[in-house]
């Protein structure tokens, strides 16, 4: 039995310990906001937070997240809001993504937003070099210039 919390809700799943977290989320829990891109932790489309840290869920077995707090794109805003009923529906990063019209096809953006949220939590004013070294997600639509602008807007704020 695999036990962990997803967006604050405890989940007990009768699955193999080696099943990657990505597939537990998508196929077992039906939470499809987290995307399958490469399966080898190269592209970052599957990025989620495990105890607040960005991890690539396609290579993370559920045995490695036993008892952990998982946050996915679906819960990013609500987890940040906590018990505050007047908190906005979107996190600051998600709102910046709308303000700067970042996504195109959008498929990579769940992972991109999770990676950027994690970066900004630990480094609120990242340099370009910081961004380059920590945001290594692949976007085939080439949203990178807008990702950088959106991050800068958050850093200034």
């Amino acid at each position, binding site marked *: 039995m695999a036990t962990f919390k997803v967006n604050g809700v405890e989940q007990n799943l009768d699955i193999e310990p080696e099943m990657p977290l990505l597939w537990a989320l998508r196929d077992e829990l039906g939470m499809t*906001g987290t995307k399958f891109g490469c399966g080898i932790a190269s592209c970052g489309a599957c990025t989620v937070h495990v105890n607040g840290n960005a991890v690539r869920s396609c290579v993370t077995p559920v045995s490695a997240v036993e008892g952990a707090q998982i946050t996915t794109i679906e819960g990013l805003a609500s987890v940040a809001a906590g018990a505050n009923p007047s908190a906005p529906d979107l996190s600051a990063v998600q709102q910046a993504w709308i303000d700067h019209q970042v996504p195109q096809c959008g498929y990579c953006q769940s992972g991109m937003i999770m990676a950027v949220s994690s970066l900004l939590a630990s480094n609120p004013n990242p340099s370009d070099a910081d961004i380059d070294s920590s945001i290594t997600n692949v976007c085939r639509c080439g949203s990178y210039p807008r990702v950088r602008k959106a991050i800068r807007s958050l850093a200034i704020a």
Partner: protein
Amino acid sequence: MKINRRRFLLSSAVVGGGVLIGYSALKPSNHRRANAELATGGEHYVTSFIKIEPNNAITVYVPHSEMGQGVHTSLPMMAADELDAAWEDIIVEQAPAIDLFANGDLVKGFAGEFGLPGFLTGIVNASAVSIAELMNLQTTGGSSSVRFTGETAMRTAGAAARQMLIECAANRWSVARDDCSTELGHVQHNASGRSLSYGELAADAALLEPPENVTLKDPSQFTIMGKAISRVDIPAKVDGTANYGIDAHSEDMLYAAIRLAPVFGTKLVSVDAGDVLSRRGVKRIIELEDSVAVVADSYWRAKEALKGVKSQFESSDADTTSSADLFAGFERSLAEDKNSKVLEIGDAEDAMDSASDVIEGNYTVPYLAHAAMEPMNCTVHLHDGIVEVWTSTQDALGIKGRVAKIAGVAEDDAIFHHCYLGGGFGRRLPFNWNVIDHATLIAKEFDVPVKTVMSREDDMQQDYYRPAVASNFKAAFDANGVVQAWHNRFTGPIQTPGASHIPYAIPNKSIRVVDGDTHVPIAAWRSVDHSQQTFFTESFVDEIAHRSGKNPYQFRMEMLADHPRHRKVLEVAAEAAGYGENLPEGHALGIAVQESFGSIVAEVAEVSLDTNNRPVIHKVTCAIDCGWAVNPDTVEAQVESGIIYGLTAALYGEITIENGRVAQNNFPDYEMVRMADAPEIDVHIVESGEKLGGLGEPSTPPIAAAVSNGLYILTGQRVRELPLKNHDFSRSTPIAQV
């Protein structure tokens, strides 16, 4: 069926009251059909595309796929503006996959431009369908949605609806139509100050026949077009709720992992499934003509189980073929002028013979995979004599027909559920059937939904590729050093007629294509033939400029005297990029220009080498003349996107063939431009007021040449083979700039 339909908001049927108006239904037959087949309760369908409800909610149906290019916003903007609706009142819906919402205007548009494009002629050749049947598509490709469907269908539908609503109001008030005006979803009688909402007039309008002729707005009258409107699909793409084909989900769903014949065109011989069937969750091993699949209750279990399945495929002549063999074949084909076809003829060969000076360059590009972020997938559910399909596609109607045919049900008994596309780039066009066919054949064995997913490795190794191409270029100069002749021989096939054409005033041009067929399947890849031809032609033009002792920018300007739009974008891009001004030490600028899909694009790339002598692209300055801009922010986003896509190909893109099969299998060996490589991009929209040009593709072609031309200035090395990662720039000698 346990699929939660609320998750598939894009798959809406036509429901709700009010009036539906659309260009495609201006013909009475479609008008009658819409009423007979779609209307329920008190609904009245005048035509298609625009529905007005009593509460003034206005729905625009978009007959194109949304793959990030913004058509779910730009097309409704065009209809809403002509209708004089308030943008806030507009509801956008994906048009259902039924022929009433076909977008044949695309076919008409292309036919007028340069004959049918390759991705459509392929269908004609393969299935012997008529041109008339081609009108029955919902294809999204060829950078066509806004310039063809938007201009011909959306704007006309909006304008027709507006005229009908005015007529109804004028009749109700017993006033002249000319005394009425429209604004923000209302008709007003200016003299009396009376006003009726479109919703209040909708029932009356439903009784009218749409006008045969409508007057479109002058740009000065636009209220929505030309504004940077936020895209309607973006909110769902930041909170995880956007549904792509791969996100189809139900409690009873099964999942298939598939292994296709690694050497293209070969068949499955035998399978040894070992203990796989006894593994947890595994339901069946399915053998198809060219593949073997494992079906299980989760994709991961299916994929893991497939690793334990041994399979043998038949041997083939291609089993020992490598990229080197294919390129050697191209060289022979070029040398023998094999099955050559003349594209443009001039006295170029005579000019070569009498020339004082001839330069020559052999250019090549490799195969490229599309590598859309969403791996190829398709979910099919056969039940109760019908078939339902969920997939990300650039042609919903085409997929529906294909799945119905393979499932053995009537097309009317097929239901297509629209999904967002996690990238298209040509991979999801009709005719690239491989996952669709397999998913349907697998699902035929079950009565629950089955989702077939290609792994990234499958996706990369079972693509329909941008062709590898070899070419031979020559240019002849007279005694005064003036270029007199241009010679281009390249391997085909041709998918985009006209891509090898150059606009430069060179008196004699000889352009010819020779046989380049191989066993590797090919298809349209963002910008199609322009992707390779522009690298070739804009690099070789640069060679001619340097040989002529001219500055590459000035040379182009002089040779484009009869092409003011080309000159303008070159001028705007060069000036914005600081061309001719002092650059940081070790930096250089390369320039290129190309017209494709109705838009003209000039790009200036600022490049340098890093400490390991690898190219660094600091900034790309781009000027695009796309006629005018429906949504300027989308124009900029598409230009940025096309540049990055082309830059990935220029720097890294290379699919090679070893033992008949693709050697690369995932992003580590098919590398992508990421944040660290991505240049700053400065986009300038040149509004010439000419006919609308395409946007999804035209910024891709020039970038490889712009970067290579800059690297030549920096290093003295002329890049004639892509990708750049294979070049050694360690021994560089900057050239003296003119």
